C-alpha cells in the first residue's frame, strides 16, 4: 500500500514536470508539388513542428552541438539555435522566436513561427504562414483569401464571394448547389458572415473551391462575376420561390456574365508523353532522354490538373514503353477526351538553339476538303423515341480537321501562358502536319517544351523549377481554354 502511494506521488510529480504535449489539427502545406499535411504538437501552449517533418518540404540537415543546442543547415547556410533560448542566429543574424527549440522524443521541435521567420531567410522558396487558416505556403503558389457574406436582397438572398487578390473564377450552378472554382493552388477561406434559410451551408473545399449549398426552398439562382484591381467578386442572387431574380448586382462594380460550365463540358484531358521504350526520342547534351522528360512532366501535370480542376486526366502511356501513334490517338478518342496535349522535346544541329514551341494541325488541301465534306454530308438519322440526331461523317485519319480552329486557340493560349515563365522560339505557335494529331477528335496541340540539345535548357527541363514552370503554364492554358469556351466545353 505504501509502495502504491509512493508510485502515485512520483507519477504526479513527473507529469507536472514534463511539458504538456497535445496534437492539434495538422497544418496544410501548399507548394507547387500540391497540398500535404504537416503535424504539429502543443507544448506549453506553444505550437511546434518537428524539423524532420519539415525536411520533407525544405531540405535541411541537423547537427547537435555540445552545449545542447542545434545547428540547422539549409542550402549551405546555417541557423544556430542555442539551448533554452527563444532566438536563433540565421547566417549571423539574430531572429527572435516565441519559444526556444526543444528536443523531445528523440526529435527536434521548433515553434511554427520558426518556419517563416528563420527558415524563410535561408530557403530558396518563399515561406508564408497563415495562422488563421493554418496554411503554410512554400514557393510562388497562389492562395487567395476568400471572404463570403450572406445578406438579404429584397425578398431573396445575396451571397457575395470576394477573392483577393483577383484570380480566375468559374461558377457552376447545379440544382442543389453553386460551385465557385478558383484558379489557385488553395484558398484561404474565412468564416462566413451571415445566414439565410435559402442556404444550407457554405464551405471551402480543397483545392480551391467554394460550395454554396441551396435549400430546397431556394428559388432561381443567377451568378455574376466582376473584377477590381484588388479582388474578384462573385455575386449569387437567390430569389424566393416563384420570383424573378433581383438583377441589381453588388454596388460599385459592373456585373459581368458568368461562365457556366455545363455538365457535358471539359471533363477529360488527355496527356500524351512522347516516345517511350526503344523509341527514346531526342538525347540531350548531358544524356537526358526525351522519353523520360515527357513522362515525368505528364505525371506531374496529371496530378495538378486533377487536383485543381477536378477533371479526369488520361495518359497515353504511364510506363516506359513504345506506343504507336494510332494507339495514342485511339486512347484519346476512346476516352472521349475534350482536350489533348502531346509533350515533346526538340533537337537542333546547333547547340545554341533554344525555346519552346506549340504546334497545332495544319490541314493540306485534302484536309480542307475533308472538313468541308464533313459538314456537307451530315446525316440526320432517326432515333428511338422520335426525333433525329445529326451525324457528321469524317475520315478517321483526318478527324482533327473539325477541331483545327479550337486547336489553334489552345495553342495560342499555351504560348501566352509560357510568356515570362518558359523561353520560347521567335515563332512560338506553328501549324504543321503532325502524325499524332491527325486522327484526334478533339482540340489538340503538340508542345515541344525546349531543346534538349541545348545544355542550359536540358538542365532547366530536368530541374524542379523548370518543370514546375512548364506544368503551371500548361495548367493555365487548359484552365483558360475551359473558362473562355462559350458555355464551357
Amino acid at each position, binding site marked *: 500500500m505504501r509502495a502504491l502511494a509512493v508510485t502515485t506521488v512520483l507519477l504526479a510529480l513527473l507529469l507536472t514536470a514534463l511539458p504538456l504535449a497535445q496534437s492539434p489539427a495538422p497544418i496544410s502545406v501548399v507548394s507547387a508539388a500540391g497540398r500535404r499535411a504537416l503535424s504539429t504538437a502543443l507544448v506549453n501552449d506553444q505550437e511546434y513542428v518537428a524539423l524532420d517533418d519539415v525536411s520533407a518540404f525544405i531540405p535541411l540537415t541537423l547537427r547537435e552541438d555540445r552545449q545542447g543546442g542545434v545547428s540547422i543547415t539549409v542550402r549551405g547556410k546555417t541557423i544556430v539555435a542555442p539551448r533554452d533560448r527563444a532566438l536563433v542566429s540565421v547566417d549571423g543574424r539574430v531572429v527572435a522566436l516565441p519559444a526556444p527549440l526543444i528536443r523531445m522524443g528523440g526529435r527536434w521541435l521548433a515553434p511554427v513561427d520558426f518556419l517563416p521567420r528563420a527558415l524563410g531567410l535561408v530557403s530558396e522558396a518563399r515561406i508564408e504562414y497563415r495562422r488563421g487558416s493554418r496554411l503554410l505556403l512554400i514557393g510562388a503558389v497562389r492562395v487567395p483569401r476568400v471572404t463570403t457574406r450572406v445578406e438579404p436582397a429584397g425578398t431573396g438572398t445575396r451571397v457575395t464571394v470576394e477573392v483577393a487578390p483577383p484570380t480566375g473564377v468559374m461558377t457552376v450552378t447545379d440544382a442543389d448547389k453553386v460551385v465557385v472554382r478558383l484558379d489557385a493552388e488553395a484558398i484561404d477561406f474565412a468564416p462566413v458572415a451571415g445566414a439565410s434559410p435559402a442556404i444550407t451551408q457554405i464551405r471551402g473545399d480543397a483545392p480551391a473551391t467554394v460550395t454554396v449549398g441551396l435549400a430546397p426552398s431556394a428559388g432561381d439562382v443567377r451568378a455574376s462575376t466582376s473584377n477590381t484591381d484588388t479582388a474578384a467578386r462573385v455575386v449569387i442572387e437567390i430569389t424566393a420561390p416563384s420570383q424573378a431574380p433581383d438583377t441589381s448586382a453588388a454596388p460599385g462594380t459592373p456585373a459581368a456574365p458568368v461562365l457556366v460550365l455545363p455538365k457535358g463540358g471539359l471533363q477529360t484531358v488527355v496527356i500524351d508523353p512522347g*516516345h517511350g521504350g526503344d523509341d527514346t526520342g531526342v538525347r540531350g547534351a548531358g544524356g537526358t532522354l*526525351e522519353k523520360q522528360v515527357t513522362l515525368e512532366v505528364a505525371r506531374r501535370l496529371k496530378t495538378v490538373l486533377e487536383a485543381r480542376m477536378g477533371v479526369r486526366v488520361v495518359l497515353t502511356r504511364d510506363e516506359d514503353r513504345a506506343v504507336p501513334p494510332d494507339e495514342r490517338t485511339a486512347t484519346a478518342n476512346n476516352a472521349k477526351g475534350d482536350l489533348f496535349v502531346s509533350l515533346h522535346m526538340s533537337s537542333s544541329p*546547333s547547340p545554341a*538553339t533554344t525555346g519552346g514551341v506549340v504546334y497545332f494541325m495544319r490541314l493540306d488541301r485534302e484536309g480542307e476538303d475533308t472538313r468541308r465534306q464533313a459538314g456537307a454530308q451530315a446525316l440526320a438519322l432517326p432515333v428511338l423515341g422520335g426525333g433525329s440526331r445529326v451525324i457528321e461523317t469524317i475520315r478517321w485519319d483526318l478527324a482533327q480537321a473539325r477541331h483545327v480552329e479550337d486547336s489553334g486557340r489552345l495553342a495560342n493560349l499555351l504560348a501566352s501562358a509560357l510568356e515570362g515563365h518558359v523561353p520560347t522560339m*521567335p515563332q512560338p505557335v506553328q501549324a504543321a502536319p503532325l502524325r499524332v494529331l491527325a486522327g484526334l477528335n478533339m482540340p489538340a496541340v503538340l508542345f515541344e517544351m525546349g*531543346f534538349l540539345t541545348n545544355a542550359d535548357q536540358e538542365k532547366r527541363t530536368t530541374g524542379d523549377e523548370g518543370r514546375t514552370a512548364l506544368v503551371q503554364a500548361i495548367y493555365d492554358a487548359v484552365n483558360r481554354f475551359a473558362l473562355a469556351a462559350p458555355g464551357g466545353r
Partner: protein
Amino acid sequence: MKRTVLFGLAGFTALALLAWGVDFGLQYLARTPSPDAPAASPPPPAPTAHITATLFYGARDGMLLQPVRVEVPLAEGAVAQGRQIVRALLQPPPAPYVSVIPAGTTLKAFYVTSSGDAFVDLSADITAKHPGGTHAELLTVYAIVNTIATNLQGVQRVQLLVNGQEADSVAGHVDVRRPLERDMTLVRQEPPPAVQ
C-alpha cells in the same frame, strides 16, 4: 681472177643494200599507227553544263531553313534534273549552313506523276540516323519538299518514301503519309546567297 673478185664484191654490196632497205621498210611500217587505233593523248573533255538551283539548307543557327543558290549538273528532262538536285541536296552543305538531312542518306528513286506529285525514295538512313524532335524533323522534311517544289516547274506536292515504302513519318512526328506542299513559313526570308 681479179675480175671474178670484183663481181663478187659488187654482188655482196647489192645484197647488203637490199637487206637494209627491206629492214627500214619494215620498221617504218611498224611505227605508223593504224587509222583505227586510239589517240595516244586524248583531247580535254568538253565542259559539263550546269544550272543554278535553289537548295534549302539549315540556317547557321539551326532555327529555320535558308535558301541557297547552288550550281548543279544540267540533266535532260524534269525527272533527271530532279534527281541531280536531290543528290546535290543530300551532300554536306557549304559553310556556314548546317545539315538537316542525316549524313549518308542516299537517293534510291525519283519520279514525277502526271498529276504533278513528285515521289522521292530515300535510303533508311534518313530515319535511322535522324536526331529526333519535331522541329528538326520539320526542317528535314521541308528541306526536301521545298527544294523539289521550288526548282521543278509543275511539281506541286512531294511524297517522301523510305526504302521504297510509304512511311508514317521520318522520326515519329511529321505526317508523311500523303504528299506535302511547299511550306515557306520554315524559311528565313532573306535573298538567297549564291555558292559555287
